[in-house]
């Protein structure tokens, strides 16, 4: 009886030790699951953030969805792999057998421990296995307490932190200039691409034009509405998706959409169209899309085909925007007259260009007091200028200075009195030279 009791104790110790091995293996399996899941989620978040910063909204939406799907699938795979790593007592015994080179002793003892066979070799097996108990201690079978998979989330953290640092550096970089849309614009009606706005978008523009132009505008609006009615639901969904993507992108990058400022649009009639096409023109001005219109965008790169005299004098371009345009090498002319006809401008005129309140232009004479300023951040050299006409950008709606944002362009041809020039980049000038230059310039 005493011998049997001793054998039972040995058997109990063997089984206990197998369970300890199992506990350690399962601990590592849980760590494996936690660490790899964290790594996958971190990696997915970093990739989404990167795509939000680097891609345009629609591409971002697609890539983000793809990343999320992949992350979900990987997470499931990781969970399954972790589940496979978990050890039942039998598996723990088999692993311990394998790692301690016990040739199936533990697995056999464990399998037969519940109902020990009447074989005379059973006691021999228990004794034999017990004598090797040091070889299958948990620390001998699995020396690690922490899973090696911990390096995965660490690596993911490192990558994410690097990415964040790069993006922040890029944001602070000198080339990342945020251009606010102008609050006033003069454009030819013929160059405008008119589409109905989303009903949720409020009116935000005041349109000034002569009656003929307004009639043409009304006709265009009617045409746009008709076209919009013929648009498929797919394109509407695409539009909504674009808005969603833009909003998400802003949320991910932490950028705030630029507040839409009221736009004053001075329209000039399209000479190629008859002045009266039967539509009754609204009087005076229109407020944004109240009359069925919507965000009005000039087509990118479309040349201006002449201009008409606005019914209202165009207000001056604010100085800060004028400065921005000047820095980009664009003439700060809000009342550009490509046909060469003189326009009624309320702002002060210097040379052939129109100058805003304290604005400066490289292409024309100006107040010598504004000749000098901070050095231009980039090389100048364009005869065109870019204006964000849309009060609420739709297509490239990534406001807040996302690199992917490309504002539409309006090209204006020079009139007979204007000459193409090469704008000069501002540079630092010593005080002695400044006085000389100023003197020559004034002369």
């Amino acid at each position, binding site marked *: 009886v005493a011998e049997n009791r001793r054998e039972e104790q040995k058997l109990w110790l063997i089984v206990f030790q197998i369970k300890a091995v199992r506990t350690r293996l399962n601990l590592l399996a849980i760590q494996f699951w936690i660490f790899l899941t964290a790594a996958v989620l971190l990696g997915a978040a970093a990739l989404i953030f990167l795509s939000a910063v680097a891609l345009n909204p629609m591409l971002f939406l697609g890539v983000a969805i793809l990343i999320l799907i992949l992350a979900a699938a990987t997470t499931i795979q990781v969970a399954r792999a972790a589940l496979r790593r978990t050890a039942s007592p039998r598996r723990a015994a088999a692993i311990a057998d394998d790692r301690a080179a016990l040739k199936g002793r533990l697995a*056999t003892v464990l399998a037969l421990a519940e109902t020990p*066979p009447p*074989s*005379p070799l059973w006691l021999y097996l228990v004794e034999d296995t017990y004598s090797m108990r040091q070889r299958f201690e948990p620390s001998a079978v699995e020396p690690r307490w922490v899973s090696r998979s911990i390096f995965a989330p660490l690596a993911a953290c490192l990558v994410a932190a690097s990415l964040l640092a790069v993006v922040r550096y890029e944001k602070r970089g000198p080339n990342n200039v945020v251009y606010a849309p102008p609050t006033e614009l003069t454009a030819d009606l013929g160059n405008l691409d008119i589409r109905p706005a989303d009903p949720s978008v409020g009116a935000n523009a005041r349109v000034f034009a002569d009656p003929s132009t307004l009639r043409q505008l009304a006709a265009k609006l009617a045409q746009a509405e008709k076209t919009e009615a013929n648009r498929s639901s797919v394109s509407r969904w695409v539009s909504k998706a674009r808005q969603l993507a833009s909003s998400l992108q802003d949320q991910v990058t932490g950028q705030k959409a630029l507040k839409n400022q009221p736009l004053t649009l001075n329209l000039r009639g399209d000479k190629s169209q008859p002045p009266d096409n039967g539509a009754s023109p609204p009087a005076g001005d229109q407020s944004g899309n109240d009359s069925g219109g919507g965000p009005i965008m000039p087509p990118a790169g479309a040349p201006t085909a002449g201009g008409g005299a606005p019914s209202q004098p165009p207000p001056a371009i604010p100085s800060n925007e004028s400065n921005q345009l000047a820095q980009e090498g664009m003439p700060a002319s809000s009342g550009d007259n490509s046909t060469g006809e003189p326009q009624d401008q309320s702002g002060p005129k210097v040379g052939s260009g129109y100058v805003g309140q304290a604005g400066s232009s490289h292409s024309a004479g100006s107040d010598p007091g504004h000749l000098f300023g901070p050095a231009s951040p980039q090389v100048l050299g364009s005869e065109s200028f870019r204006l964000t006409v849309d009060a609420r950008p739709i297509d490239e709606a990534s406001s807040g200075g996302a690199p992917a944002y490309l504002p539409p362009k309006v090209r204006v041809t020079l009139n007979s009195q204007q000459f193409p020039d090469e704008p000069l980049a501002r540079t630092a000038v010593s005080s002695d030279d400044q006085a000389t230059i100023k003197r020559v310039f004034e002369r």
Partner: protein
Amino acid sequence: MSDPRVENGVEGIPTVADFARIFRRLQGEIHKAIVGHEQAIEELLSALFAGGHVLIEGVPGTGKTTLVKALGQALNLSFNRIQFTVDLMPADITGTRVILSGADGRREFSFQPGPIFCHILLGDEINRATPKTQSALLEAMAERQVTAGGVTHPLAPPYFVMATLNPIEMEGTYPLPEAQLDRFLFKVRLGYPGEDEMVRIIGATTGADESPVEPVFAAGAAAGAIEQLKRLVREVLVSPAVEQYAARMVRATQPQNSRVLGDLHSPIKLDVVSRYVSFGSSPRGAQALILGAKVRALLDGRANIAFEDIDRGAPAALEHRIMLNYAAHTDNVDAPQIVEEVVKAVQQMRR
């Protein structure tokens, strides 16, 4: 100095250490007559202690008959040899009833036992006999008894049949029927010896000195001792996982089961089996795997079977149980290759 034959007799219940010691001693004695062929000798002895029979295949001159003779001498058991020929009849093996005159002048039938009545039987070149004669061995091998003239005569244990096959000179031979092949626990291949072994063979067999094989067991005690060791083999413990492993291995040799092995998560396809095997191993193959593994476990000082024991015994236990088709012959694929693939595939499932 004590008599080694008495010393190696097993008093009472043999232990694991006893088994290993006797086994090694037998190996040593046989190696006095046979140079090399360590694995073949181990498989031969394994089959003996597992209670099975052995088919020995080898080209002429590789020591098949010498091996069997040495085994008989080492075991100190009765040993008979039958040279199978085309004209050998079943009665020539099993024995026959003859009319004998009694002391009172009455004549009566009396059973005269054939050479099959012994402990160790060597059937030399068994494939030269007709299937009818070959089948005469079936009952003796499977049931360890011989029926002649309506009377059943038991064979004294231990009963161990070793048959040799000559793989060349196939003209005029009769391939063993599958049923009879299946009754051999192991098939042992004796190949040509290597150069070193050849030198040792020359030295050992052409000189004046011969080292005779000493019997390991005392006369009269051998049968009892071997039976006790055979019982010890049967006592070796097997975990369900190992039993399942052996069953999987045998099923993997069957073309109808080899397509999808393993579980749903890690299915394994054995194309080589489905393409080249017409019939796989029978359940006797699994028995052979387990019994051979039990002997190996005892030799290793264990009371339990490991997966490795099964793997090691697979070629001897399964090769002769696999029937190849015509495609295998045309593609020059043989049974050892098939078994090797099967073992590899089943090992994957073990992980």
